């Protein structure tokens, strides 16, 4: 928190959460005051159609490590319902798995589901223990009003326990919010020069390098995949593979049109130009592995329609295999037995399906790309890099950072990324409260 130069404010307007970023220079005292304030100060002005989800909140760009926001009673109630549902499900599954009648596939399905809720269950167990402790302390306090030392001690312990309960509630809330399965994946970065010719290409290169530096700072691996250079050694197009924990999750909001305003190197008259580059962040698929189900395969032999079996003697062991869902067919006859022709047919079908799956992923990737970047017009603009004013503004969260050089060095991108992630979380919390 201290190392950051700004403060995020959360505003709720018409049911939507907005995050405002203010630089510290302007509101340092305010900032300090908020953090140390003893009287909870609402950061979220509640509007008529949204309940206040947090009673007080002091979020910083580095996350809410120091202080846990107090979750409102409404939200706790909603959460409690979910928690007991999870507990019930957990019991049911545990029970189910200890029964001998469970078939292997049911067993593994149950096991999978259990694994999914395990981390929530661990937190719930902790929470229940804390709640029991709090109950115990409560009755202790009620029982001994005359023993002052004892009473004070119990109150102190209870405060601690309540703070701890609150901490667990916060963790649980986080764990219950919907997660994007792709967040943990590695990703592909694609940068393309848009309107603005050579200047756009030069900026595309700078943006590409910015992400490269940022990735290194995060401890991720950055590999340049492909670069198409422009005449002045800018990048018309470039792509890189970024691998490291949570790469896609942190970078996914970078997709969109990035606008640059500055005097291009090529501009003699010294006028400021506006150009644009588009960025796409695509999750990398895990190694596609083809799963063949027996019931999806049909196998024929080329028999002359006779009765087969003991009736006939044949040296023809050709096999035709069809993958019913895709209609793929292979015929193999060069092996010496039906069994071996079948084994080979299976291999060939597998390889073909693998190819099919890869090209399908490829197409869905290009579809994703066009969805992310939009049509490339002004409406898709997510961020402006204004060199004359030395600032970078993210239009989605309304955050402006005043040291453009730091940003281009990959230094302070976190200011935007954290803000965007928090906004996502806020959106999720807002809908978490509303879907009940």
């Amino acid at each position, binding site marked *: 928190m201290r190392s950051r130069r700004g403060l995020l404010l959360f505003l709720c307007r018409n049911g939507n959460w907005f995050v405002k970023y203010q630089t510290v220079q302007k509101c340092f005292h305010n900032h300090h005051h908020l953090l140390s304030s003893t009287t909870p100060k609402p950061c979220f002005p509640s509007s008529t159609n949204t309940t206040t989800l947090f009673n007080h909140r002091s979020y910083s760009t580095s996350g809410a490590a120091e202080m846990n926001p107090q979750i409102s009673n409404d939200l706790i109630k909603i959460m409690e319902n979910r928690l007991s549902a999870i507990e019930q499900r957990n019991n049911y599954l545990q029970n189910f798995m200890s029964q001998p009648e469970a078939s*292997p596939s049911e067993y593994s399905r149950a096991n999978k589901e259990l694994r999914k809720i395990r981390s929530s269950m661990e937190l719930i167990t902790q929470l229940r223990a804390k709640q029991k402790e709090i109950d115990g302390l409560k009755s202790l306090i009620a029982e001994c009003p005359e023993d002052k030392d004892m009473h004070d001690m119990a109150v102190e312990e209870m405060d601690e326990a309540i703070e701890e309960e609150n901490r667990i509630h916060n963790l649980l809330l986080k764990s219950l919010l919907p997660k994007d399965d792709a967040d943990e994946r590695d990703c592909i970065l694609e940068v393309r020069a848009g309107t603005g010719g050579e200047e756009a290409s030069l900026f595309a290169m700078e943006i590409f390098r910015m992400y490269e530096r940022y990735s290194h700072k995060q401890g991720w691996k950055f590999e340049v995949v492909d670069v198409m250079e422009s005449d002045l050694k800018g990048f018309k197009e470039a792509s890189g593979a970024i691998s490291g924990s949570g790469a896609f999750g942190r970078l996914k909001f970078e997709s969109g049109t990035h606008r640059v305003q500055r005097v291009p190197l090529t501009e003699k008259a010294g006028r400021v130009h506006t150009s644009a580059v588009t960025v796409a962040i695509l999750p990398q698929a895990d190694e596609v592995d083809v799963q063949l189900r027996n019931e999806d395969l049909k*196998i*024929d*032999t080329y*028999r002359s329609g*006779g*009765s*087969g*079996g*003991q*009736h*006939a*003697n*044949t*040296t023809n*062991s050709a*096999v035709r295999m069809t993958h019913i869902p895709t209609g793929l067919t292979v015929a193999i006859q060069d092996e*010496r*037995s*039906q*069994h*071996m022709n079948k084994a080979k047919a299976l291999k060939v079908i597998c390889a073909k399906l693998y190819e099919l799956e890869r090209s399908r992923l490829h197409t869905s990737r290009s579809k994703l790309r066009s969805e992310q970047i939009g049509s490339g017009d002004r409406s898709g603009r997510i961020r402006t890099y204004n060199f004359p004013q030395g600032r970078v503004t993210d239009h989605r969260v309304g955050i402006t950072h005043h040291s453009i050089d730091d940003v281009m060095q990959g230094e302070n991108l976190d200011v935007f990324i954290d803000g965007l992630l928090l906004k996502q979380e806020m959106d999720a919390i807002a809908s978490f409260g509303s879907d009940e």
Partner: protein
Amino acid sequence: MEELYALWKQRIEERRPFQYIVGCEHWRDLVLSVQEGVLIPRPETELIVDMANEVILKDKEMKQGVWVDLGTGSGALAIGIGRLLGNEGRVIATDLSPIAASVAAFNVQRYNLQDVVEIRTGSWFEPLDEFKGKIVGLVSNPPYIPSGDITGLQAEVVRHEPKLALDGGANGLDDLLNICKGAASFLKAGGFFIFETNGAKQSKFLVDFLNIQMEGSFQYVNSVSDFAGIQRFVTGFRK
């Protein structure tokens, strides 16, 4: 050259099966010795090993128990299944024909399975007294051709393969019914069986026979088709 010509003549004029000429047959991933007096194993029969493998993979007890192949011929099924069991279980294979028994024993040796597969000479269950109620898996491809159809079989088959391996009596079911009855007393509870049949008619008959005539002995009785779509097998479990 002369010799080659003689073989060729045998193939064309006498319709001697190619596998008898070369002395072996490729079956699954095996190469099995065959000679006159022993049925050449058929591609349809390969599937029995796949079905056995399915139950063996699912259940450790199946892998560790005693399997039986009745009328083993070249030993194809016994060897195929023996290789699935590793060193944990064992296979006892029987055949009434001494030639078949000796060819089967030879093939077992070739695959170095003499500790896993044991060949016994005798009629169906007769040499298996000590395994009554102890067998976990029973497979058989007994003779199932109706006697009246024998002369109409493909020349290679009718002229060269042993009648003992083909002729199943008036409706082809003599041996299959015999084996079904034996299965009830020789399989242990939960034991699995697969029999090869002449097709839909025999399979249907056997499914009904096992379910109705032998009511209470078996469960999950099913017919299974071969790759040509013919209902070739009957499978099920001892209750």
